[in-house]
């Protein structure tokens, strides 16, 4: 009998210790221009006291902390505990979990392509009845967001498998305004001007670009963004969509041309800091550091809106560093000003009342605002207050997103896993280190043929 009592009190102790870790809220409830009403309404509807919700995702470190800060509000509103675990190898882990068991309740996919694979295997649960049109009603360009989250399930029927939460804009070039002013360079408005500027910098004895493709086992992905941006600027949106679905073969001259357009920047002698060889292995997180050296190792860095997280400490986005839109070709002015972006997809992997409530929570404007106020989070949610963004840079990015006329999703994220997260990556590494564009494209296409 004594033994049981000790056992029970040990468990009780552990539970008490667990709840003692509940985090403080980053913004006190009721303060500021947030949509607190949405949170109060949500809290009134749900009570999950004592339940635990497991969430996994690819974000780690400070970035993961931002998400934990958000979940604290869900915990407070419902009494539940949210356990978030982030992993650098999330893409592998979630697939292993789907086959071997141990799936979380909610998974935050950095790539919808992977979610599509898992949905087809029946590992994902479609959103609740009332949520299917949520993104259409609440997100800018909502119809295309919904399309991106609509896949066939295990039974072959199409369903909406989640909610996009957190978006990145990719068509950006980062630069240090002070350096540009000092050297007398202007912000290029066209690709032709951008190329001329790059040559000008070389003639002035500088190095125009910092390029870094290194990312561990995912090495090569930054170059896929270059190629996708070039596709949007040299081919029609229809061709882009056909390319992503492989109706336009990967080795088509249109695609090979886009790869070579990337090569114009990465491979031209003197354009990339350290040469293409260094570009192929420099870690993408370290690559932008060159902008801030004195004298600068490079003047420009093309990377998505999330990159300020990895800028050296003390660098203030908006004052020390700015971005300009990766411009279109003057020669192809009929293609407009396309924007390439990506987004994380929150999907339910375990059908419980609490997961449905959690998805609803992620859809509230207050959830988006609480992420926006921590920086590094862009939202297409039309009800989220733009004033919450912490800087003009973030606001400008948010506006690019909410006003984009032609917006296209990161193509490699939509391709099948073998292509988008493997063959395309390694192909770009091969191309950057000397292989020729046609043979790289042929190899990727033959890999694609194998899985058809």
């Amino acid at each position, binding site marked *: 009998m004594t033994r049981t009592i000790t056992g029970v009190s040990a*468990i009780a102790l*552990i539970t008490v210790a667990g709840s003692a870790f509940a985090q403080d809220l980053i913004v006190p409830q009721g303060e500021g221009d947030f949509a607190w009403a949405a949170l109060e309404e949500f809290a009134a509807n749900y009570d999950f006291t004592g339940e635990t919700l497991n969430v996994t995702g690819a974000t780690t470190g400070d970035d993961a902390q931002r998400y934990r800060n958000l979940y604290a509000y869900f915990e407070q509103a419902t009494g539940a505990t949210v356990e978030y675990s982030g992993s650098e190898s999330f893409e592998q882990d979630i697939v292993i979990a789907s086959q071997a068991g141990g799936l979380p309740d909610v998974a935050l996919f950095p790539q919808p392509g992977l979610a599509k694979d898992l949905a087809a295997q029946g590992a994902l649960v479609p959103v609740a009845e009332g949520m299917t049109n949520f993104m259409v009603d609440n997100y800018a360009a909502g119809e295309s967001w919904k399309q991106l989250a609509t896949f066939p399930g295990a039974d072959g029927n199409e369903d909406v498998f989640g909610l996009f939460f957190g978006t990145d804009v990719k068509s950006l070039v980062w630069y240090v305004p002070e350096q540009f002013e000092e050297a007398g360079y202007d912000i290029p408005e066209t690709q032709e001007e951008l190329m001329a500027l790059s040559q000008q910098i070389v003639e002035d004895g500088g190095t125009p670009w910092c390029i870094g493709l290194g990312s561990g086992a995912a*090495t090569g992905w930054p170059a896929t963004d270059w190629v996708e941006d070039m596709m949007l600027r040299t081919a029609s949106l229809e061709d882009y969509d056909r390319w992503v679905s492989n109706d336009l073969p990967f080795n088509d001259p249109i695609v090979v041309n886009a790869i070579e357009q990337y090569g114009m920047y990465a491979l031209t002698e003197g354009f990339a800091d350290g040469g293409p*060889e260094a570009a192929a292995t*420099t870690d993408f997180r370290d690559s932008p550091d060159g902008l801030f050296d004195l004298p600068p190792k490079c003047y420009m860095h093309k990377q998505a809106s999330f990159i300020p997280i990895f800028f050296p400490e003390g660098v203030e986005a908006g004052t020390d560093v700015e971005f300009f839109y990766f411009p279109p070709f003057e020669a192809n002015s009929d293609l407009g000003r396309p924007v390439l972006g990506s987004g994380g997809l929150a999907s339910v992997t375990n059908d419980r009342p609490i997961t449905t409530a959690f998805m609803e929570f992620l859809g509230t404007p207050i959830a988006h605002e609480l992420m926006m106020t921590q920086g590094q989070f862009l939202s297409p949610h039309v009800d989220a207050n733009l004033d919450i963004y912490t800087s003009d840079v973030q606001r400008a990015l948010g506006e690019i997103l909410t006003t984009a006329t032609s917006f296209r999703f990161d193509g490699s994220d939509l391709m099948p*896993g073998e292509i988008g997260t493997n063959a395309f990556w*390694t192909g770009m590494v*091969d191309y950057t280190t000397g292989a020729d564009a046609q043979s790289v494209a042929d190899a990727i296409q033959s890999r694609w043929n194998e899985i058809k």
Partner: protein
Amino acid sequence: MNPVFQGLITIGIGVGGIFLYFVASNALLDKVLFPAKGKNASRNINRANTVRPWLFLAPTIIALSLYLVYPVIGSFYRSLFNRSGDEFVAFSNYTTMFASSEFRTAFWNNVLWALVVPSVSTFLGLLIAQLTDKLRWGNIAKSLIFMPMAISFVGASLIWKFVYAIDPELGIINAIRVNMFGLDPMDVLQVAFWNNLFLMVILIWVQTGFAMVILSAALRGIPEETIEAAIIDGANPFQIFFKIQVPQITNTIIVVFTTTTILVLKVFDIVYAMTGGNFNTQILPSYMMQFMFRDDGRATAVAIVIMLIVTPVMIQNIRQARAEMR
């Protein structure tokens, strides 16, 4: 429930369960099935003793078949099916694989790994074991060389990433190139063919300590008289080493060599963490990772090939171990 708590309970159930199994199964055998009394007492004792070894082996045999034999057969079966696993394709996964140039690169790289790493680490291990044997600070040297054994392969790879870094302020190779020879820094991991050797160095660095410890123990086990006799006969140190000492520890050398070979054939972490298989450094295990959970048919086909390569080495290893027991 708290994971620590779960762990403790699991250990409790495991250890207690095994204990219970032996007590209960022996009791069943001795008291119920073949009781050592009555008119068949002596026959029953003999029977019980014939059955008893199987009693002790049963948990191992069951565990091995469940976790080793079944996966091998299951993998082979899976490799005969297509990507989604619902269509029988016979050996087409194998034919596509053998036709792929990346597979051939991975295969030959692996052969290179299997030749270079075990020989170099065994050779260095033996050399160090002999050289440090009589030194006063030999034990300190040995501990230092043994230390990398405690580092995980990914950890070791991260350390060597700094050694190979392009930035001459970080990477020692480029620091030497730039500061001593005035050459341009280069990424050594992109130098075709040689980059394979640079990756192998990491595993050699980790494994030499293992070879050294085992061989050092073996060298100490050699009877002193044989060496004394050789000295009296006027043999020089090289003759003593190669003609007296090495022949007496050949078996140990072979065991160390084959153990390292088996390890080499399953290490994928180093390539995965250092180059991701780019720049023609792919090896079979990391090649398999590309397909795993995406196209399990292809992945299991690679797994079967790796198994076929490892099997002869393993058989040799077991034979050697058995020969030594006799």
